[in-house]
């Protein structure tokens, strides 16, 4: 089952860095896994804990927030705030028995197309190793039981 498992990943990408880096990866014809669904945000500081939680609750197997390199945030400290929120969500996930590794904070600059692609590949692989989200698996099994 895990062999055929294709993780669904949500990436919240800052307009000023990671999103542009994704664009750069595209321009350079660097491929990255289609598992990663990008949501562009004006700054990672705009990403709230609830956005990450809702993504996981609605079926994402992993979520990462990709912001500017430390000290390079267009809005000064948005990426630092995002990193704090990611840590908070990780702690909450741990409390409810979901692997905190399913959520990560990543930083890069707008010119790092290669890094964007590598991050997408590495994170997809990490989630593939972790397996499907326990939330999604249990909910699906529950629905199957209810139908039969």
């Amino acid at each position: 089952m895990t062999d055929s498992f294709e993780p669904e990943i949500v990436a919240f990408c800052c307009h000023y860095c990671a999103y542009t880096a994704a664009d750069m990866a595209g321009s350079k014809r660097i491929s990255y896994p289609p598992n990663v669904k990008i949501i562009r945000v004006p700054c990672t500081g705009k990403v709230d804990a609830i956005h990450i939680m809702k993504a996981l609750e609605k079926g994402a197997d992993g979520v990462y927030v990709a912001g500017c390199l430390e000290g390079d945030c267009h809005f000064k400290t948005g990426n630092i705030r995002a990193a704090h929120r990611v840590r908070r969500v990780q702690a909450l996930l741990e409390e409810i028995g979901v692997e905190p590794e399913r959520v990560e904070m990543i930083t890069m600059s707008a010119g790092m197309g290669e890094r964007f692609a590598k991050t997408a590949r590495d994170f997809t692989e990490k989630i593939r190793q972790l397996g499907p989200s326990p939330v999604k698996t249990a909910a699906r099994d529950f629905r199957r039981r209810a139908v039969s």
Partner: protein
Amino acid sequence: MITAVRKPMEEIIACVEPYDRILLVGCNECVSVCSAGGRKEVALLASALHMHFMKQGKTMDIREITLERQCDPEYVEELVTSVDGSDAILSMACGCGVQTIAARYREKPVFPAVNTTFMGASERQGVWSERCQGCGDCVLGITGGICPIARCSKRLMNGPCGGSTKGKCEIDANVDCAWQLIWDRLKALGLERRIEDIMEAKDWRTSRDGGPRKIIREDLAS
């Protein structure tokens, strides 16, 4: 404001586990300001509970409502239509809010989702410190605006004690000595001689010594 912190998920889950329909109620006042039980925290807790119970193969019906103020019967009345459709109420307000709900909706079990902690002020983003213990007889006017009851570890009315070192309290090097703060403040105001005025033993009857307290304003409580 009244400050609070969310209870551990394990404790919250144990409370609501036997039920299928939960009414999760936040409060827009103090707990919202200290990021413990406002609309955002309600959404976050609901999401965490959903995920936990989905993991167990259980669909939990969680209805989220955040009231303007949970410690006022007028606002708690707003729950009247939602309460019927729930098996239990989980409140993210301070203890006052939880008790107001419990008094109004006697037929429903009510659980607190936060631990009410203290009356405090915001030092900076994300940091709150205890500032008042509601002793009922404020002395801030003679202590330079620094409360020796809330901020001195020993609640000394005449300080500092021998445990004050370089402006810090002996219980923890990160805790300011309240009496050092009082001295510094009085000195800045040119009122340092006041430190030598002996304060008499405090009359604690205005505090909890007289049992649960009540304020009755005759002009309002008609």
